[in-house]
């Protein structure tokens, strides 16, 4: 199973904006590691959730031809914690999309209320200036990611 930290997309506007949600459950093992006496969904996994929401948005903008890799967490500010029973909403927007990279701006909501901001940069790694070669197969966008976004892309331009 792949490391997926969003449950589903609610909105997907190709090249512009995506919204995904995650429901945090006490049945998930990781919440008990952080911490046993007071289980929470850690901020690092919410950064990963935003990276997946925004990364799929960036990848789809070039029809999943590019290998999109998280290159920089430009901002990650959290004003609150998330515990089992909470729903996290990831709202991502593309700020800049260029041949070699993209930057995104993101807001996270806890049960509908904004509580965190995560801005990211992604690299299109085949376009790197040092000329390093990567495998031809797109190892970033495999079946699971595509299935996640497929229902929202039916009938959409892109």
């Amino acid at each position, binding site marked *: 199973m792949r490391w997926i930290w969003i449950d589903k997309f609610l909105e997907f506007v190709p090249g512009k904006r995506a919204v995904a949600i995650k429901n945090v459950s006490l049945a998930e093992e990781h919440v008990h590691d952080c911490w046993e006496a007071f289980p929470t969904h850690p901020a690092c996994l919410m950064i990963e959730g935003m990276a997946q929401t925004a990364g799929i948005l960036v990848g789809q903008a070039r029809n999943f031809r590019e290998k999109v890799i998280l*290159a*920089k967490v*430009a*901002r990650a500010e959290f004003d609150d914690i998330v515990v089992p029973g909470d729903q996290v909403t990831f709202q991502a927007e593309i*700020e*800049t999309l*260029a*041949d*070699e*990279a993209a*930057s995104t701006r993101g807001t996270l909501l806890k049960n509908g209320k904004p509580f965190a901001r995560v801005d990211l*940069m992604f*690299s299109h790694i085949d376009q790197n*200036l040092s*000329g390093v070669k990567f495998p031809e197969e797109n190892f970033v966008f495999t079946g699971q990611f595509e299935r996640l976004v497929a229902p929202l892309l039916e009938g959409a331009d892109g």
Partner: protein
Amino acid sequence: MPMSETDVFEKVKETLVDALGVDEDEVTPEATLTGDLGAESIDFLDIVFRLEKAFSIKIPRGELFPDNILNNPDFVQNGRLTESGLKQLKERMPHADFSEFEKDPDVNKMAELFKVQTIVNYVKTKVA
């Protein structure tokens, strides 16, 4: 009306504070991006994206921070820029101050050309 040098500097400073997570007082005209402000390769692209937005300008890739110099054997020999390499770099970076670097054009010292003032000089040519 063209922006004054101070206005450009203040906006560049704001951009670098956001892009590199540094304190405002660290961003002086003479501060180098990598040595003093800790910029890494992806940060250079981030800075370009942010400058484009902040000043509503278009920065063609390789214009502010030139590429394809170091991997050309005509331009670099034994870890130093050749005469033609230095000439090429000067042509492509009229916004940089070469007075120190040209005394000893060691490629490891090239990062010293990328100062806050280098960005200010470049942006001034774009917003003039």
